[in-house]
Structure formats: structure tokens, C-alpha cells
């Protein structure tokens, strides 16, 4: 497996109505990695696309809102079509610090992983911890944070995620990770620091009703995709267990 160089990658930033923060994130990523940045504007109405362009990003403008994963997948498809070797994804709301991106590349190099997830353990609230414990049991994936949008995908993972198979998923978490794990991708987590969101709130953990619905849908997804025996040893966590 060849190692990824940041300049050969495309940074994909899905954004919906993030005009306040997107320019800073784009500038930060360009400065830190020196790679091209693609903001996927998920049908924003607040001028996110113009702000991103002004900061030097390329922009995909989705005419219909597809949600965070639909937007990320659009970026991954763009990267696959245009010959990039990997994709770095991060949120547009400023919670992922561009300075932490090299950590992902370091983990990729150290563990020869196809997918690296940047996790901030301290940030996890009690309900999230309980939810993740449940998902760990259900999926057999030994990950600590399923929803973190701070990720690095290599070319192989990128091709799998660009496929139609991944298009009906609604979130980038469990469904995406199970798809990658069943196909034998090596997934590792690496601890990073994150900031509290400057603007907006978590789309997944917005209210109890949303959480309940999310957990219910995810449970159905997990049970229907369960494929025992195939996922062992394909993923691994790094960093101290807290």
C-alpha cells in the first residue's frame, strides 16, 4: 500500500449554512496541508458557496439538499473522478482544527490504515458514550466515536464510498464504517483535539426525539447488514483508552 501525501489529497468539507465559519476552515486547511480544498454546499441559502470560493476553495453546489453524508459522497466522487489519491474530510463549523489534520496522515503512515478517524474522547457526552457502547456491541466495530466527521480515506476506501452501494446511507457513521469494514478496510482512530462548535449544533444529537429515531434506524441498519466473521481484525483503535 502506498502512503498518502497531503498534496495528492482533496480536502472535502460538506457545508450547509456555515457562512460564518467556512472561510476560516478553508484557509486553515490550505495553509496546513497545501492541498486543494472542495467545499460541498448542501443547498445552503446563506452564501456559504461564495464565502468558500473567496477563501480559495473549489465548490460543488448541490441543487437538492442531500444531508452531510450525501454531500461528503459528492466530494468523494469528485475526488475519484479527478484522480486524487485520498480524501480528507472535516466539518465546516470549525469544530475540527485544521492543525490536527497532519495527525491523521501520521496515523495512516504508522498503522497502514485505509481509513483514519480523528476522535476527541473528552468531547463525548454521557448519552453519546452510552450510544456508542451500544453500537460497538451491535456492529462488532471497536471504535470509540462513530460520528466524527474528521476522517482520512485512501484511494481504495474512496472508490468503495463513491459506489452506488453507499448512496442510500443517511449518515456517514455506522453504515459507512460497516460497509468499509465488511470490505476488509483497515480503520483506525487517532485522538485529536476539537473545539466546541462555533455556530450550529450537532445534526445527529439535536434532540431526544431525533436521537431515538437515529438509534432506531441505525439498529435496523446494523441488524440488516450484520455479517458475522468478516469484520474481525480489520479495524483497530489507537491511543490510550480512557
Amino acid at each position, binding site marked *: 500500500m502506498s502512503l498518502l501525501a497531503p498534496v495528492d489529497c482533496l480536502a472535502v468539507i460538506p457545508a450547509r449554512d456555515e457562512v460564518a465559519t467556512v472561510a476560516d476552515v478553508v484557509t486553515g486547511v490550505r495553509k496546513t496541508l497545501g492541498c486543494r480544498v472542495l467545499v*460541498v454546499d448542501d443547498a445552503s441559502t446563506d452564501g456559504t458557496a461564495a464565502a468558500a470560493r473567496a477563501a480559495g476553495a473549489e465548490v460543488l453546489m448541490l441543487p437538492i439538499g442531500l444531508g452531510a453524508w450525501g454531500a461528503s459522497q459528492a466530494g468523494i466522487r469528485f475526488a475519484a473522478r479527478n484522480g486524487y489519491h485520498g480524501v480528507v474530510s472535516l466539518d465546516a463549523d470549525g469544530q475540527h482544527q485544521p492543525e490536527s489534520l497532519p495527525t491523521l496522515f501520521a496515523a495512516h503512515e504508522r498503522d497502514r490504515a485505509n481509513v483514519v478517524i480523528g476522535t476527541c474522547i473528552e468531547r463525548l457526552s454521557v448519552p453519546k458514550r452510552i450510544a456508542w457502547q451500544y453500537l460497538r456491541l451491535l456492529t462488532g466495530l471497536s471504535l470509540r466515536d462513530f460520528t466524527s466527521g474528521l476522517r482520512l480515506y485512501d484511494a481504495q476506501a474512496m472508490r468503495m464510498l463513491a459506489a452506488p452501494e453507499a448512496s442510500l446511507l443517511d449518515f456517514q457513521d455506522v453504515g459507512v464504517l460497516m460497509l468499509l469494514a465488511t470490505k476488509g478496510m483497515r480503520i483506525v482512530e487517532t485522538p485529536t483535539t476539537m473545539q466546541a462548535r462555533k455556530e450550529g449544533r450537532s445534526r445527529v444529537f439535536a434532540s431526544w426525539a431525533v436521537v431515538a429515531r437515529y438509534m432506531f434506524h441505525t439498529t435496523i441498519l446494523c441488524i440488516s447488514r450484520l455479517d458475522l466473521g468478516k469484520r474481525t481484525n480489520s479495524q483497530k483503535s489507537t491511543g490510550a483508552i480512557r
Partner: protein
Amino acid sequence: MLDAQVTAAILGVGLAGAIFYLVRRDHLHGPFAAWWLMVAAATLTLGMFPGVVVWLGKITGINYAPVLPIIIGLSMVLLRLLKLDIDRSRQERQMRRLTQKLAILEQEIELLRRERARGADIDGKRRGER
């Protein structure tokens, strides 16, 4: 008062007529019409020949035969609804991929345009230098 057979005949023939009309006016996609014509045929058969219902009741062990058409009808509706959701899922996938493709192609066109404009600029400057 109408005879039950006549009511069933009116329903079945009326439904079949409506289906053909909708296909003719291009309001109903051909393959969908097949299902509804089958429903019309079933209504007609079960209504015109009540003996069929009694016979089916005996075969299936449903002692109260008149409830059988209702059970069959409901199962058909459920099957149809399930098929509808399967089709909707397929369309949702296609719609999402098309939306993504549209945005990707739009950006690629934009990049090509910019490259061409840059090329034209350079050509213009060269011509100016000469």
C-alpha cells in the same frame, strides 16, 4: 336493489375502463397498468362467480368464506405498498446520484472555463508582445 354479481361486474369493468383511459391519456406508466388490470379481473371473477370464493375458502381453511375477498384484497394492497417503497428507494438512490453528478459536472465545466480563459489570456499577451 342490485344483485351482488352486477355490483361486482360494474366495479370490475369500471376499474378496467378507468385503467385503459389513464394509459391512453398517458397518466399511467404501462407496467403499472398491468397490476391494476389484474385487480379489475380479480374483482370481476370473485364477484361474478361467488362459487370461486366458497371453493377458495374450503381450500385455505377459512371457514367464513365471505371474509376471504377482504383478506386477499388487503394482502394485495400491502404487497403493492411494499413494491412502491422498493421503487421509491431505487428512485431516491438515482436522484441522489444524479444530484451529485450534476454538481460535479457543473464544477468541472467551471474549471475548464477558467482554464480556457487563462489560455486565451496567455495567447493574447503573446500576440501583444509580437
